């Protein structure tokens, strides 16, 4: 089996990463009762000999679990969050050699993270990633987790992305990017996000965008339901509990949702299933054009995770939910936009026939691009998330994602028109004004590409219900 490495950058990236490792451990503990180090565990964890302090590796499969180490590299330009992690309950998962911190932070400035720290720490970052890669016998994928609004996650995070492409061009790069809310307390977040967007568009294989605002709304709904009369919140539900991660921190429940997204997307790589989906199949099937690799994630069930007084939903309801606006991790409505491709990744007791039936049921209410009317990629993993019978992750390559991008561009333009705060950026070595305009152009052309697809679909759907076939090659007979 293949292995993957998680690279978590900045405060947000490390907090989300921390939740991921906690939940992943719990999931494996639930499945793997015998304490044997198996292929499934090996995909994200190493097994090291507890007698020799961390150096001696006993990664051979089938042996007893000695001491698990996360296949991770933790990067932050301040110490707070990483220190909390290495002093917290998950401390044994990480060696100091996997950590990289500074003391002064990036001051919410993309240029500080990307240019200044990027150049200063370049060698060290590459060295740490390479060491993690050397522990893998078949490295398949990097998972980068970061936020778009701040300085370290957005600036240094995207620098790391470029380094990964340079050093490991054949290894797939899947990025989880947390987009700031519209009312973000970081005033420069539009700059940081737009500058980071260009890097994501050019250097990532897939980006899973997640919006803070969307997570807040999902949690509000979940809390409302769990306050309803009944037995209340499921204690073992992975969505909102944070046991094992220490006392609950303010963003924990939001970060848990993102961690769940990562758990589900990697489940097929970690466990057996009747219809496997390799990680490299995600981009192969869902990314028709290299720049259009933003995949809108939605998770279901969400509500029933929180409240066991609601009877578990039937699988069909779960499929309907996955396409509803309320279950998307960005604020967007894929049902009213155009699908380029869609993946449905089921877990638990779902059957091939459940997938077929629901695709058949839902396809008429969704619009797909004319050249990909059957753009479905499906997978089934037999291991359900802890405490549930089944779950579903949908990844949609859908033009609805452009809403998030246009809102971001508007905020950027408002700020840039006044040239506000620009001097903080330009004083960093390597930062030039042209980078701003290039980044804005890159974003605009990305939006334009989605627009064009929307336009071509609406023009073809107005002329006829099904778009005509392309004229075929003629053979002289």
């Amino acid at each position, binding site marked *: *089996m*293949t292995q993957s490495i998680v690279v978590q950058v900045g405060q947000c990236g490390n907090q989300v990463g921390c939740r991921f490792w906690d939940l992943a451990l719990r999931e494996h503990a639930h499945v793997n009762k015998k304490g044997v180090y198996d292929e499934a565990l090996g995909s994200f964890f190493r097994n090291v000999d507890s007698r020799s302090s961390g150096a001696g590796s006993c990664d051979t499969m089938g042996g007893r679990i000695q001491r698990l180490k996360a296949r991770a590299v933790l990067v932050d330009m301040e110490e707070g969050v990483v220190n909390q992690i290495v002093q917290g309950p998950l401390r044994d998962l990480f060696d100091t050699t996997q950590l990289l911190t500074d003391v002064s932070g990036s001051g919410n400035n993309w240029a500080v993270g990307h240019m200044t720290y990027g150049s200063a720490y370049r060698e060290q970052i590459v060295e740490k990633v390479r060491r993690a890669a050397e522990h893998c*016998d*078949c490295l*398949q994928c990097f998972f980068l987790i970061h936020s778009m609004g701040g300085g370290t996650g957005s600036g240094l995070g995207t620098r790391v992305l470029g380094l990964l492409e340079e050093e490991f061009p054949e290894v797939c790069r899947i990025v989880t990017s947390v987009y700031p809310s519209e009312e973000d307390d970081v005033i420069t977040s539009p700059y940081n996000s737009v500058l980071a967007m260009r890097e994501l568009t050019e250097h990532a294989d897939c980006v899973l965008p997640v919006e803070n605002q969307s997570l807040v709304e999902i949690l509000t709904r979940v809390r409302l339901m769990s306050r309803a009369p009944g037995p209340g919140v499921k204690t073992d539900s992975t969505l909102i509990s944070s046991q094992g991660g220490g006392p609950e921190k303010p963003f924990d429940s939001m970060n848990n949702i993102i961690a769940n997204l990562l758990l589900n997307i990697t489940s097929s790589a970690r466990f*057996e299933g*009747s*219809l*496997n989906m*390799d990680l*490299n*199949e995600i*981009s*192969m*099937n*869902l*990314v*028709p*054009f*290299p720049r259009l690799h933003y995949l809108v994630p939605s998770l279901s069930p969400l509500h029933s995770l929180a409240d066991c007084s609601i009877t578990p939903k039937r699988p069909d309801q779960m499929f309907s939910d996955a396409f509803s606006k309320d279950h998307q991790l960005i604020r967007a409505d894929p049902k009213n936009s155009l699908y*380029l*491709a869609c993946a449905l990744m089921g877990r638990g007791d779902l*059957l*091939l*026939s459940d997938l077929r039936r629901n*695709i058949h049921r839902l396809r008429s209410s969704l619009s797909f691009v*004319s*050249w*990909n009317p*059957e*753009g*479905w*990629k*499906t997978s089934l993993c037999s291991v359900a998330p802890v405490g549930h019978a089944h779950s579903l992750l949908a990844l949609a390559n859908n033009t609805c994602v452009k809403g998030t991008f246009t809102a971001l561009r508007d905020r950027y333009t408002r700020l840039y028109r006044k040239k506000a705060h620009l001097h903080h950026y330009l004083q960093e070595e390597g930062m030039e004004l042209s980078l701003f305009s290039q980044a804005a152009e890159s974003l605009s052309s990305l939006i334009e590409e989605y627009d064009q697809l929307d336009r071509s679909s609406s023009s073809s759907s107005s002329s006829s219900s099904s778009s005509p*076939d*392309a004229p*075929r*090659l*003629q*053979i002289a*007979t």
Partner: protein
Amino acid sequence: MSIVTVQLGQCGNQVGQELFDVICKDAHDGQKKGYNDASTERFFHETTTGDLSSRAVLIDMEPKVINHSMSKAAKSGRWRYGEKSHFSQKQGSGNNWANGFCVHGPRHREAMEDLVRREVERCDRLAGVMTMMSVAGGTGSGVGTYVTQCLREVYPNSFILNHLTWPYDSGEVIVQNYNSVLTLSHLYGLSDAILVHENDTVHRICAQLLNIKHISFGDVNRVIAHQLASVLQPALTTDSYGVYSRNPLGELVSSLACHPEYKLLSVCSIPQVASSSMAYSVFSWPGLLKHLRQMLISNTKMEEGIDWQVRAPPAHCGGAESARSFRTTVFNTSLANLLILRGKDVFSAEADGFQEAALYTSWLPSREAFSMWKSPVSFNQYEKSATLVSNSQTLLKPLDNMVRKAWNMFASRAYIHQYTKFGIAEEDFLDSFTSLEQVLSSYIQLG
């Protein structure tokens, strides 16, 4: 004579395992010695400990399926795969034909060729090589095509039969039509004949004839294996004078693929019934053959919903005329047919209905176009069974669908970058489209 089988990718390795299972069960359930010996020589060799080991090579770019198939075979207690006859890697081809064909194939060429050579050297007399794979994914299609190309180079005078599984029309892989087009166009230049099973057809057989409620891939694969085994098990040809050990691949190819433009073979068999109703079913040769003939001319792929209105045309009307309206014509014109009858009273069976000139194209006389094999040994628990391998217009429509969908996608250049990054250029796609349009056009002109 012996056949060396090469199983590639998830599908090939699963179907292959079912095939050997059917063959082994069929040949050793108290059957006649001549038949058993011929079947064993064809598909197995005996190890020093007296076990049956299949003449197969297992290839995949990830280990899970091969491990599963090997342990399933070992558990059967009847046969097993050779301990060292498999090759696998850690990371799959990711549904990408180019990754399989341009990267994985060349990288592991030597190891894969060695495995095949070892099996070939174990054969006293080699009939040829049969590869088994799907066309939808990355490994079966891409590595499978590459391996076929290598085998053609290494064994220029041996028969190569490709067994292909075509994906569900609404598939599980988004780029399946690209992968299929690339595979078929390349194989067309390499293979002696291409034997096709469509998942959609087999799925309907499982649901409607075998009454299976929750159909799994295992059920689908078993039906494919049954049909394939009914073709490949020993039979007597008209000029074999009661001796079984002939070259099954060579005879199949020479009866059916007589023209390089026409290599696509489809299979249908009757009867196929749920095992629970087998005891209550009685079949007669005239009844079976009447159904099978109507299935052939009306292009019905299973014994249900046969259109009895379809009749063979009185005389040949010009090819171009019917060519233009091929989507609406229902009559299925054949280039060549091979009928295989197995079971009780087989020598009394008359197949006159298949020899009518009206069933065939005008330029090949029906005595050349029709062949029949018989075996008095009943096959896979059916007292009487008939299998028809047909080189006809049957696959025209599914192939046309495949090419149309891939071409629509290609018109907007969607997903092309995934292929170019492994070295397949737009021109390669265009070449593939051109050659398949040529194949389509040839088959249209049959009728």
